[in-house]
């Protein structure tokens, strides 16, 4: 592994000058597919289904971008990345974008030279414990053994939470969500901590989800979103506005079912027209076709449809919209105007 990281770092160096200048968009068009870094396996967000097709909420963002750029939501090459390998893979050009429930922090944005294009899920870190443990609050976890994915912000939040509350704990560092699940179910740790959405997704895959409870404390802010590397503003604009299009589509009532009809001729709402390309030239400004947003939305649906399909209340994961509702419904989702 050492060697690959070192070579990776050298490759970063080698590619940097070229990659920074060259347009990612042209590379993708020439290649004919989008390279997207995703989670190694988190049901609901990014996991291969029984046929080996990647499915999930984060995966849907990749597909929407591929649809916007190439017109084909299937033209995506998925690279599963662990918490440790993700930024190196992005920086080295191995992937064009990362859609891997990654928390937006200042260090990652500024020091690691990434560009977060927005937030597709407002999350916070929580704890899951077996019901039989009899714990009802995270403040009762003094002395507990905690499974934690290494290379994540949750690792630092955990250290801070226990420090602030003056409690001891025993961290068990783990590489992937699957290993964490195995150790937690075997009782090698009392509790597993990660983003609350990840906990819900993990719990959904348990044999008896009812035997486990997610504690009420949310100990951090975890705005999760897709990101690209610094240095190619045209590309970051495309990913940013594709995400915005998905969010705005829900607000404007554009769904995968009616998008084709709405795009066939101008509607009464000028903003919908501008977004769907029947009015103005927003697509051209982005360097894309006029129907870029139509493709993105018909790939899987608008933000709300994706949420309901992959992680919503009717799925085994069963997440409520909560903070992730539209601003008109009291949530935090607020797409800037398409103008």
């Amino acid at each position, binding site marked *: 592994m050492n060697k690959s*990281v070192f070579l990776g770092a050298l490759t970063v*160096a080698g590619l940097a000058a070229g990659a920074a200048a060259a347009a990612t968009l042209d590379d993708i068009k020439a290649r004919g597919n989008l390279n997207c870094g995703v989670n190694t396996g988190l049901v609901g967000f990014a996991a291969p289904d029984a046929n080996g097709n990647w499915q999930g909420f984060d995966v849907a963002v990749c597909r929407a971008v591929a649809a916007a750029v190439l017109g084909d939501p299937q033209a995506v090459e998925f690279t599963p990345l662990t918490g440790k390998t993700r930024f190196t893979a992005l920086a080295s050009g191995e992937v064009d974008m990362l859609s891997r429930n990654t928390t937006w922090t200042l260090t990652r944005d500024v020091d690691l030279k990434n560009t977060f294009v927005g937030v597709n899920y407002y999350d916070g870190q929580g704890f899951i414990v077996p019901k039989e443990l009899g714990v009802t609050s995270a403040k009762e976890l003094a002395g507990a053994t905690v499974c934690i994915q290494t*290379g994540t912000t949750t690792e630092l939040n955990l250290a801070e939470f226990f420090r602030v509350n003056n409690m001891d704990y025993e961290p068990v560092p783990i590489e992937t969500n699957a290993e964490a699940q195995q150790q937690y179910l075997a009782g090698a740790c009392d509790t597993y901590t990660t983003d609350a959405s990840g906990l819900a997704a993990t719990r959904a895959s348990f044999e008896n989800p009812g035997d486990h409870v997610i504690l009420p404390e949310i100990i951090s802010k975890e705005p999760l979103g897709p990101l690209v590397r610094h240095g190619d503003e045209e590309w970051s604009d495309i990913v940013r506005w594709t995400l915005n299009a998905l969010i705005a589509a829900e607000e404007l009532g554009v769904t995968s079912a009616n998008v084709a009809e709405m795009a066939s001729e101008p509607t009464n709402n000028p903003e919908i027209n501008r977004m769907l390309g029947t009015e103005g030239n927003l697509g051209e400004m982005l360097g894309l076709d006029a129907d870029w947003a139509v493709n993105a939305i018909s790939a899987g649906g608008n933000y709300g449809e994706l949420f309901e399909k992959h992680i919503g209340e009717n799925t085994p994961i069963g997440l409520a919209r909560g903070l992730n509702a539209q601003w008109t419904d009291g949530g935090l989702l607020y797409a800037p105007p398409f103008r």
Partner: protein
Amino acid sequence: MTALTEPPKESFRLSMLIYDTRYRSMTIQVVALIGFMLVAAWLINNTIVNLNALGKPVEFGFFTEPASYDINQKLIEYDNQDSHMRASFVGLLNTLLVAVLGCATATIVGVLVGVLRLSSNWLVSRIMAVYVEMFRNVPVLLWIVLAMAILIESLPRPSAFRGDEPDATMKVFDSVALTNRGVYIPEPLFTRSLGNIHLFGDSALRFDISIDLIVFLLILGGSIYAARRITAWANATQERTGERPRIWHINLAVLFLPTIALLAALGFHLGYPSLQGFNFQGGIHMRNSLIALWLALSLYTAAFIAEIVRGGILAISGGQTEAAAALGLRPRRITSLVVLPQALRVIIPPLISHYLNLTKNSSLAIAVGYMDITGTLGGITMNQTGRELECVLLLMLVYLTISLIISAVMNVYNNRVKLVER
């Protein structure tokens, strides 16, 4: 008679560098060296320039900033507000711990298996052959993961020890707890401890050494030295008079009485682990990750060492064994007095490289979440700071240093056992 004519003195000409076979090889080597250095310089320069262009210049300032993550197994005091350097030091000690434990165990098991594989007992030699082939031919990572999975899945949880009718009980007179979070064994404690020596003040490398341990080792060393002197005296007396004085009881007393007296003076007692809250408290906690890594690495390396030992023994001519048998030595004495001392000369050099392999293989620790230097410096620190190149360079430097030290130490030993040529 003709006078011998001196060959004309040839002056050095530049073309001789190419056409004269005396100089040509030198020329080629110099040119190749310059070329190699240019390529190396270009690579390094390219890396630095491009990292600068990327806005990530090579710098090590991050090393003194707070690490802000926790490490479970720490041999020295560490807090998440300590620096990344301190965290790396904790990881380094964990690497060294598993390397030392692994090398020792691998040597013992390897020598035993190697000798037993040559046993005339068919069953024993076959079993050893199966062991060697099984461990040698499966990647060590799989053994590590397997050992970890077995420990986690088969041992009871700490909560199984709770209640009036617990599902699991502590072993060995209620002193050892085997749980799926590790093994808890009693720890030595002193009521009248002499305290610690603090080294390196407040720096990241600060280190405490227990004075109790130093005194204990000094006295034990002294006892062993005294016992050897007594044995030497007994040998000399036997040489002189033909009668060997009875010394075993004296030796026993010299070996044990001073240390027992010291332990009593320091108020030695054992601290037993007990179940408190979520986990066992007290005692020494040997985590599953350590045990899995240690077991897998030593059993894997022992299979190779066994083959080296077997090869070394087979390299000793059968005539020597027969000659020793003709002198009336029993098989065990033949092995320990005649065969093994000579076999060591063949065994030591490849053994060194297997010690190095074991130490480097310990970087697979991350597979089971053991916080060695690859897990701290090359894992969390690298990930949280985003300084890939710096961390990996440091990591390589650390492993290089450890390996060179092991080589140096083993070479000194090799020089002592190798055949002295006259």
